[in-house]
């Protein structure tokens, strides 16, 4: 058995703990964080577990520091992570931008609670979805994943690290209080059973330091979306990196031309790999006239209303966004051409709904199903919306309540 401090096998595990174990299994050895409900358990687990695998856990003075510390750790060669919720997520935006600009692999888990401001500390929300996309200033692309169970929170934390390393960029795991605080079966594979991707990296002596370019993108003859090898501190490259617009050498280059080069580089390395990054779960889309598009806990709770609607003869399909950013535009555009309506359940005023609307571009109707934090969506709400989208009356009340009392 592997006893390098790695937990394997079947466990009845809290979602937050599952995120921590996924990180450890994929090789995360540095965690910096700040206590905040409902993400605290990730930090707690890491504080106990990391020293057992020769990793470092540190509680920083705030979330600004936490985010920055994981960037520093990554430049020293570690796979690093932080975890937070709404208010802390806001504070991390500043240095999430730095991470993107410096092209730093790292993972940020946002266990969403109701907002804005201090909002609902202990209760669920999905209100940071647009902040995940646009929260730091300037133009960039981001990768964000959205799990629907503790098992998937485990799996996607691993995937987040792999994507972060591969594309040299911070990756967000956008979970929520419900998943984070839920305990379910989590199956942890043996370390050799999981795919582990490590960053493209130059080691001491690989390249003549004088000719090393930390952001060179000419190796592939102008093919867009290259990820250039990274050097880490202490290997003799004596490189420079900056949050300013920079050139291949990492030197400040403040002019329009460099800005164009720099930002397109950040954007294209993700856009060019969209098909690889985007993961969707699809059910019954072939004959669907209505498609429920959802993610995270809301996708999960939409399953029963969908089954129910199909029993009622409504041809409804299910599209779960496992990757939320980059947004699966191509798929939605394609589906919009041949269906009647999208139904988008989410615990906010309608954020991802806007994206679906943008892609549907008037070709299909888009109906949001919303609840403003504090609790998960009632199955009945989603069922009503599906019926409405299908042009049915909302009368046949064979809802969950009735199912229970029928027994």
């Amino acid at each position, binding site marked *: 058995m592997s*006893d390098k*401090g790695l*937990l394997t*096998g079947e466990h*009845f595990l809290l979602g937050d703990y599952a995120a921590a174990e996924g990180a450890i299994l994929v090789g995360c050895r540095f965690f*910096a964080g700040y206590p905040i409900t409902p993400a605290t358990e990730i930090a707690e687990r890491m504080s*106990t577990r990391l*020293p057992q695998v020769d990793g*470092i856990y*540190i509680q*920083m*003075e705030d979330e600004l*520091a*936490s985010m*920055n*510390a994981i*960037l*520093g*750790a990554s*430049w*020293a*060669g570690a796979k690093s992570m932080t975890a937070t919720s709404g208010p802390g997520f806001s504070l991390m935006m*500043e*240095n999430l931008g*730095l991470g993107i600009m*410096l092209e730093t692999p790292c993972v940020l888990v946002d266990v969403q609670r109701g907002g804005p401001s201090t909002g609902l500390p*202990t209760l669920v929300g999905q209100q940071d979805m647009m902040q995940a996309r646009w929260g730091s200033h300037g133009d960039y692309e981001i990768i964000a994943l959205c799990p629907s169970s503790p098992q998937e929170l485990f799996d996607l934390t691993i995937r987040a690290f792999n994507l972060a390393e591969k594309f040299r960029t911070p990756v967000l795991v956008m979970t929520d209080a*419900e998943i984070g605080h*839920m*305990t*379910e*079966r989590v199956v942890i594979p043996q370390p050799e059973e999981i795919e582990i991707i490590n960053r493209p990296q130059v080691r001491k002596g690989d390249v*003549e330091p*004088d000719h090393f*370019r930390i952001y*060179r993108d*000419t190796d592939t003859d102008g093919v867009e979306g290259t990820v250039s090898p990274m050097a880490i*501190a*202490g*290997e003799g490259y*004596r490189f*420079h990196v*900056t949050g*300013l617009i920079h*050139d*291949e*050498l990492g*030197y*400040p280059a403040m002019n329009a031309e*460099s800005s164009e080069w720099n930002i397109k580089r950040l954007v294209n390395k993700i856009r060019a790999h969209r098909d690889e990054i985007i993961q969707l779960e699809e059910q019954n889309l072939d004959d669907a006239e209505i498609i429920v598009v959802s993610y995270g*806990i809301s996708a*999960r*709770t939409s399953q*029963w209303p969908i089954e129910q609607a199909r029993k009622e003869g409504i041809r409804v399909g299910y599209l779960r966004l496992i990757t939320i950013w980059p947004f699966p535009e191509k798929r939605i555009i394609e589906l919009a051409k041949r269906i009647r309506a999208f139904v988008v359940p989410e615990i906010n005023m309608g954020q991802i709904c806007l994206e679906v609307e943008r892609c549907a571009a008037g070709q299909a109707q888009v109906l949001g199903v919303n609840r403003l934090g504090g609790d*998960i969506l009632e*199955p009945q709400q989603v069922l009503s919306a599906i019926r409405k989208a299908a042009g049915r009356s909302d009368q046949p009340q064979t809802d*969950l309540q009735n199912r*229970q*009392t029928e*027994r």
Partner: protein
Amino acid sequence: MAESDMRLEHSGHEPDSQSDWVTGLHPMDVLLRGERLPHIWCQGCGLGTALTTFIGALQWLEKNQNWDLDKVSVVSGIGCTGRIAGYIRLDSFHTTHGRAIPFATGLKLVNSELKVVVISGDGDIAGIGGNHFIHAARRNLDITVICVNNFNYGMTGGQSGPTTPHGARTVTAQYGNFEHPFNLPYLAAAGGASFVARWTVLHARRLEWTLREAMMHSGFSFVEIIAPCSTSYARWNLEGRGLDPQKLGRRGLEVMKHYQQVGKIGHDTHPKDAAIKVNEKGEINAIVEGVFLNEPKPEFRAAIKHKTQIAKERWSAAKKVLDARLKLPGRNDVVERTEVQLGGFGGQGIMSAGRIIGQAATLYDKIEACFTQSYGPEARGGAAGSQVVVAGEPIHHPHLIAPTSAIIMSQEAYVKYVPNLTSNGTLLIDDGLVTLPEDHRQDLKTYGIPATQIAEELGNARAANSAMLGFWAAIVGAVSQAAMRQSLADSVPPKTLEVNLKAFDVGFDKGVEVLK
């Protein structure tokens, strides 16, 4: 070489060759990014001297202490001083405003071989980054923080900052600064720094010596460098002879002269007494310089390492317990969605009881379970509730829709949860703690045992939840007895294992009895 030359041609964002700029004539050239010169600093600025002394100190360490400069990382924030990172030919990180210290913290903690130096300005270190500064000092993290203090925000045009002397003028303090400045050495020392010093750029030689010492120091070392801001701060204050057109080009030098007049070397001065003094016009009239504090103190990274052994022992023990878990075959019969509400007060183990059911179902009966808890303020003795859904199929909706059974261990929980139970549901109460009211729901199957009393008689009142779990397992039957016992064994402290299992068995037997 040919291949490398080709690479240079491909890049359109820099001078033809780095070597065009580096003359190699000056001994410090090797540590400068010559291709980035000339620098952006103003004439008469103190930053050139600060950089030169820093390089001098590094070269001395390389020569005399065998330092491998490949292992030195320089981190800076934003501002004029922040640009030093971009001119020095070492691994260098130009981060966000104020955040150089946490970035450095990550670097140093991951690779303790690195020598990490933060160089930034007073606005960066003491203003926007002030919190990081005091906390790094508190941890006594083994990094060196060099703060070049020019009493204002230079890069943005000379606004007041956290070190602007009281009464001094800046573009945002045209009537004299009404705030009081930080005494940075005192702040660092109070935070917990183990090496604290100050020099002005006039003391180039002494400053270099101190920088060597600071970088060799194990623990958090802080060096404040007082430097003239010839363009901004000197423009408004008399040290630079203000707006006197005759002196405009010499402001930096005028300020240095002034520092020479008001400065006084005072090694070992108590940092409290190291405040920079001003007259009623805000003109600096006393600066104490020297090494104020240099004390050995346990360094942070070592303190972390120290705990690793304990952590590993803890892991081995936990692993042993995990490996010893029973392998049960699981159940094959159909299990319908069973929703269990647990309620009581804090300290009764309402949370663990719910978790034990879920764990028994998933790990040992191999069916599905989803456990959630109602979070309240972290207070013991308050109301506590937890919920478990057990089912043979995947659980889409994690919450209770209509609870089919409930374990209730307080009157408050009775009032709160019993109305939600589905008709014909099963209510289990600790009848020593819960009294059924006259209008108790007749559509429920209600059973009670004096669980707390049973547990007390067995010698530990806290095993009451185990008695309730046994009772529940026997009556509801959604999870097998063997699975429940094993899950219970996994979950309670070894010392209380026996009493908990006994309580469980008593509860179970009572349940079987009641069903007869």
